């Protein structure tokens, strides 16, 4: 079974702090994703990575950065946390398949509920 783990289930930080959210997957997946989930807005893609040291902006990258130094680990960084970044953060991974055969089934971690005060 694919396992995606996230470093914390709950996190409370103060405005202006630098925040690191860590995600590790154990299935040698090439793709990794960071989403935030808010009521009424659903899952929104922040950043994704399709290979080590590669990253692409998603739909809402402002205020975030990412790091992927190893294939199994994908970190989300909030450079200076703000209250509007209070949210549930979900990490996911998926296997690269050939174009035209994509299934892109994503495997999600349990989520980190971040509160910024």
């Amino acid at each position: 079974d694919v396992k995606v783990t996230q470093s914390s289930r709950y996190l409370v930080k103060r405005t202006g702090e630098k925040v690191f959210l860590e995600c590790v997957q154990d299935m040698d997946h090439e793709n990794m994703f960071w989403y935030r989930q808010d009521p009424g807005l659903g899952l929104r893609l922040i950043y994704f990575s399709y290979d080590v040291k590669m990253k692409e902006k998603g739909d809402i990258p402002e205020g975030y950065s990412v790091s992927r130094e190893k294939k199994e680990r994908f970190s989300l960084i909030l450079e200076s946390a703000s209250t509007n970044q209070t949210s549930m953060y979900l990490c996911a991974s998926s296997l690269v398949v050939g174009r035209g055969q994509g299934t892109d089934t994503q495997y999600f971690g349990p989520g980190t509920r971040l509160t910024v005060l």
Partner: protein
Amino acid sequence: SQKIEQNSEALNIQEGKTATLTCNYTNYSPAYLQWYRQDPGRGPVFLLLIRENEKEKRKERLKVTFDTTLKQSLFHITASQPADSATYLCALGEDTGFQKLVFGTGTRLLVSP
């Protein structure tokens, strides 16, 4: 503009009945569509995938249909059980260079005994 719409109101049904959830999309050309289940405080879990050239897919008590003309997918749970209570998300995948999914906001299903 691009939109994926799922019924934001919770669907309440009685145990044993069939639950039907809808996913409508606008201005997308999905190569496939997926359905996920999400329990409170947990990450989504993959349930089913259906490709654009498939009309229907089944897995145990689950059935998904995909109508690219109507731009709609229906997700059915037959003989529903209280344990089926959760939020169900649809997600579209376009056959582009990067393998991303776009998620709907989900519909909450409540199955009462």
